[in-house]
């Protein structure tokens, strides 16, 4: 992973000092809350329902064990002993005090962590495929480019007061595990005709009040021009994005208003005026960053591990774990292990400090000190030897981290919702827990197969409900929590926006409705169809009938 040097570290120190100074000015009344708010937001600090929430940046979802241990320590020392992983691969602490934040930032800086630009109208955490560097289906490592963008976007003087937030995602694989097409800018690594590396650049994706799938701005951009091209897009957005209405201020609105052709024309015109030599990264610097992600020293192992096979044969639990949570690795004898933070009945995406310590230990010992966060609020140990899988599984199981439900119905994405968030209209967590309990029987969950359920407590869609196989949006209907279901969304490479199923349901009717949808699916499906496939084949009607007949 990218290792900070003295310059990077001095930067974090300066940032931490700056915020300490800004907090002091705020407490002394030298800054109004209105003046202070964007400053604290650009350090990831929100005022939520019960306390401040601190959102810590986990650049492209990548952590080492030292960092994970420090996060556990912060959770214990300054919060209530847990953290919450988000749909942008970041970590949130929900019980933070303003007066502690300068010290927290210092403690984070010691392990090269920060909260820079995890909120605010600026370029946010660049997210990427959590399997980067481990998956065989990679044209190039998206972490290289994510790190390039991270540095370039950090305290960018021109783009720190955009019309609204700006989110970029990068993937190097054909399978999109980073919801790239729902981003303001999405970058798909592609091979050029000459075998060189480049990007398909998409823009204008986004969820929230008006969801859009990103459209292609440029089908092939030579990789060395990434920064100048992104600069062109940002400049067009900074100049022409709407500033009169926060609900119409994202770049997706601009792209939709101009149309992709005109938007592209403006971007290309601006790009033509940029001095690329000055704007793009010199090859030497690119090489330096790329070197940070050089392939680690993998052992030369056989494809098959006898020890693992024996353990697997003897343990149905291990079999189930491998079936659902373990993915193929590009190197023989290794595997990618997903760590589910969706234990039945737990808060989705939460990890206790103790659990974080377990993950840190496992990461250090069994995964080449490499730990990832997925946008589905789970963790990944990307480089586990098959030989070590039984030990890893046992340790995860002991820590409550071995629920074998990745991508199954109980692997629910849920935002913190009205239990924590000042923006929410309804709660998401209890709904997720109710639904998960319906699929507590792992046999049932596996029978149903891949089913991505995502819950947002408000229209801001942090739970990604628009791109869920079954999406659930909490609304406030005359003071009551109601939930609107949608079907057929996808955040993967087959991206689509879900369609609303029907009138909103009261909270107690949601889990039964999911049951009804699943039963309908099991009844209708043919062959190997996932829920999403069946829906795409038969449409809304059979599902609508299943839910609304049942609700009566």
């Amino acid at each position, binding site marked *: 992973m990218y290792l900070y040097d003295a310059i990077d570290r001095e930067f974090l120190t300066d940032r931490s*000092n700056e915020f300490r100074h800004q907090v002091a000015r705020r407490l002394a009344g030298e800054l109004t809350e209105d*003046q202070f708010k964007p*400053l604290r937001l650009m350090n990831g600090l929100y005022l939520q329902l019960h306390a401040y929430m601190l959102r810590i940046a986990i650049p492209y979802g990548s952590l080492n064990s030292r960092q994970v241990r420090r996060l556990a320590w912060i959770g214990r020392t300054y919060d209530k002993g847990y953290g919450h992983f988000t749909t942008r691969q970041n970590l949130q602490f929900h019980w933070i005090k303003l007066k502690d934040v300068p010290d927290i930032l210092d403690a984070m800086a010691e392990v090269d962590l920060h909260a820079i630009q995890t909120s605010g109208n600026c370029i946010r955490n660049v997210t990427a495929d959590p399997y980067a560097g481990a998956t065989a289906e990679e044209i190039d490592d998206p972490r290289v480019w994510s790190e390039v963008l991270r540095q370039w976007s950090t305290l960018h*003087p021109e783009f720190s007061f955009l019309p609204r937030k700006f989110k970029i995602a990068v993937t190097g694989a054909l399978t999109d595990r980073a919801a790239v097409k729902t981003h303001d800018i999405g970058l798909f690594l592609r091979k050029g005709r000459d075998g060189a590396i480049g990007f398909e650049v998409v823009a204008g994706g986004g969820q929230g009040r008006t969801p859009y799938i990103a459209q292609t701005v440029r089908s092939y951009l030579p990789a060395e021009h990434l920064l100048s091209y992104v600069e062109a897009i940002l400049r067009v957005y900074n100049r022409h994005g709407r500033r009169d209405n926060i609900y119409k201020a994202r770049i997706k609105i601009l792209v939709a208003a101009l149309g992709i052709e005109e938007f592209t024309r403006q971007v290309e015109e601006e790009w033509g005026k940029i001095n690329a030599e000055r704007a793009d990264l010199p090859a030497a610097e690119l090489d330096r960053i790329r070197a940070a992600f050089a392939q680690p020293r993998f052992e030369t192992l056989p494809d098959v591990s006898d020890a693992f096979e024996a353990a697997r044969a003897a343990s149905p639990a291990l079999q189930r774990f491998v079936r659902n949570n373990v993915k193929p690795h590009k190197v023989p004898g290794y595997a990618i292990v997903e760590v589910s933070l969706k234990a039945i009945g737990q808060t989705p995406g939460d990890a206790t400090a103790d659990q974080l310590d377990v993950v840190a230990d496992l990461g250090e010992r069994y995964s080449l000190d490499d730990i990832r966060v997925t946008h589905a609020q789970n963790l990944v140990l990307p480089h586990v030897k098959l030989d070590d899988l039984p030990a890893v599984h046992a340790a995860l199981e002991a820590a409550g981290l071995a629920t074998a439900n990745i991508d199954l119905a109980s692997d629910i994405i849920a935002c913190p919702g009205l239990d924590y968030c000042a923006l929410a209209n309804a709660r998401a967590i209890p709904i997720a827990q109710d639904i998960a309990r319906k699929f507590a029987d792992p046999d049932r969950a596996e029978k149903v197969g891949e089913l991505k359920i995502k819950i947002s407590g408000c229209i801001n869609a942090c739970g990604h409900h628009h791109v869920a196989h079954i999406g659930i949006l909490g609304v406030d209907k005359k003071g009551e929590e109601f939930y609107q279901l949608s079907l057929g969304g996808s955040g993967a490479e087959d991206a689509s926006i879900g369609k609303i199923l029907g009138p909103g349901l009261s909270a107690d009717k949601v889990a039964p409705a999911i049951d009804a949808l699943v039963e309908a699916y099991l009844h209708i499906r043919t062959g190997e169809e996932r829920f999403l496939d069946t829906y795409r084949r038969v449409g809304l009607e059979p599902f609508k009938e299943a839910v609304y007949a049942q609700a009566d």
Partner: protein
Amino acid sequence: MPKLIKLTGDPSGKDFGAEWAEDGFVHVGDDDALPEGDVILSLARFQAEGEILLSNSRRVGVRVEPDQEVEALAYDLPRLSVVALAFPKYRDGRAYTSARLLRERLGFTGQVRAVGDVLQEQAGFMVRCGFDAFEPADGATPEAWTKAAHRFRHVYQRAADHRRVAFEERAV
């Protein structure tokens, strides 16, 4: 005279500072009578009357609002003393783009002044984008301004100030 903070020294180096300066310019509204001396006009008024004023050998500045394209001044820049870029609200970041374009694309070497909701917490960004004069709205002093602009020993991206970027520091 109105309080103006001006940068001293070269913003690409570590030694630049700021000081109080006499502001020789008067902001003139579109419906105001024109006073004697150096003036800053709106873009519209400049486009109507600027030629005459410049030929009277006054020093002329133009105030550009965030929704106005600074490129409209391209041909006039060599004769302009000041371009004042407005921040109606400090959160409106369009003037940062305008400033960079003035410096890096249009080659403007006169004064680029920040006016409106100009706060010391944004001093660093403004200096990097090419602003060299400021009408502070928050009672900031040149000392506070200098301190704010010097908060970061390193920067990661190129901008109008031509400051050495982190990777250039490493290359040495």
